[in-house]
């Protein structure tokens, strides 16, 4: 026998969803979680690098979003606002873990080992460059394998889209240090992708998906 009919309100756009959240409509919260939680979790995981801690950031982010929903002024999109809260929560957790995020022993000038090893051209296939999900999984795995000092800089600059100045402020680094670390991180990710593109069959898929 079929169970009771459950109607879930589907909000067509963020404006309707926001309206529903402000009126405390029961489905609005579920809808918001379905729409934004996967990307919030992705951001949290890339920043803090630990599944349990990322779940903590996910929960705190949405609790703050619900508490502050009436103060959201619409100056940015709802998603941008939520992702910014998630980034701040992730950074706060990292700061509480360590006195300073800038303490790593990272040389602040570029070194000979920041030079490229691989100088082999990649095949020309524009789809592979941005849409191949396996390639994205590879680069996500490579980012998670970076030391924290490099992972944070490349995550904030290239994924979160912060400026050099904003990244420097968030991490307590000079802008020069951000640029050096960004170059080093990108070169390491390039080498990781180069090995994958040259020998995709040798990559451990479980490792890449993690």
């Amino acid at each position, binding site marked *: 026998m079929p169970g009771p009919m459950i109607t879930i309100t589907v909000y067509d756009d963020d404006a309707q969803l926001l309206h529903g959240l402000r009126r405390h409509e029961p489905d609005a*919260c579920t809808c918001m979680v379905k729409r934004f939680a996967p990307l919030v*979790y992705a951001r949290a995981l890339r920043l803090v690098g630990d599944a349990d801690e990322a779940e903590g950031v996910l*929960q705190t982010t949405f609790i703050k979003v619900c508490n502050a929903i009436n103060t959201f002024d619409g100056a940015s999109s709802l998603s941008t606002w939520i992702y910014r809260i998630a980034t701040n929560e992730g950074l706060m957790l990292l700061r509480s873990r360590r006195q300073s995020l800038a303490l790593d022993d990272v040389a602040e000038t570029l070194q000979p080992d920041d030079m490229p090893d691989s*100088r082999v051209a990649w095949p020309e296939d524009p789809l592979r460059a941005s849409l191949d999900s396996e390639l994205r999984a590879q680069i996500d795995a490579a980012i998670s394998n970076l030391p924290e000092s490099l992972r944070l800089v490349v995550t904030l600059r290239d994924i979160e889209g912060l400026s050099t100045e904003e990244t420097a402020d968030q991490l307590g680094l000079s802008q020069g240090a951000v640029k050096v670390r960004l170059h080093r991180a990108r070169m390491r990710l390039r080498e990781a992708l180069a090995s994958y593109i040259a020998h995709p069959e040798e990559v451990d898929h479980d490792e890449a998906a993690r």
Partner: protein
Amino acid sequence: MTKPHAELPPCHDLALQLSAYLDGDLPADLCRDLEVHMGDCPDCRVVLDTLGRTVQIVRSLSDTPIFLPADVEARLLARLTEIARKAQQL
């Protein structure tokens, strides 16, 4: 230990600027030097191209969700429901 300059690849100084070049952060004179150099250096052209494509893929992660485990989502919804319920009781 840092190698003496003579042992480094000839495009060493310029290759270190590729990341800043991609971001448009390089001063105009260095930009010009790099572009002149790349005209004669296939290695640097390959590195620039592959570095640029790497950055493009990294940037594409901004809208690529990681699979959200069902139990993580369930715990999040349960916590939010609990908080909403308590708020209504006040």
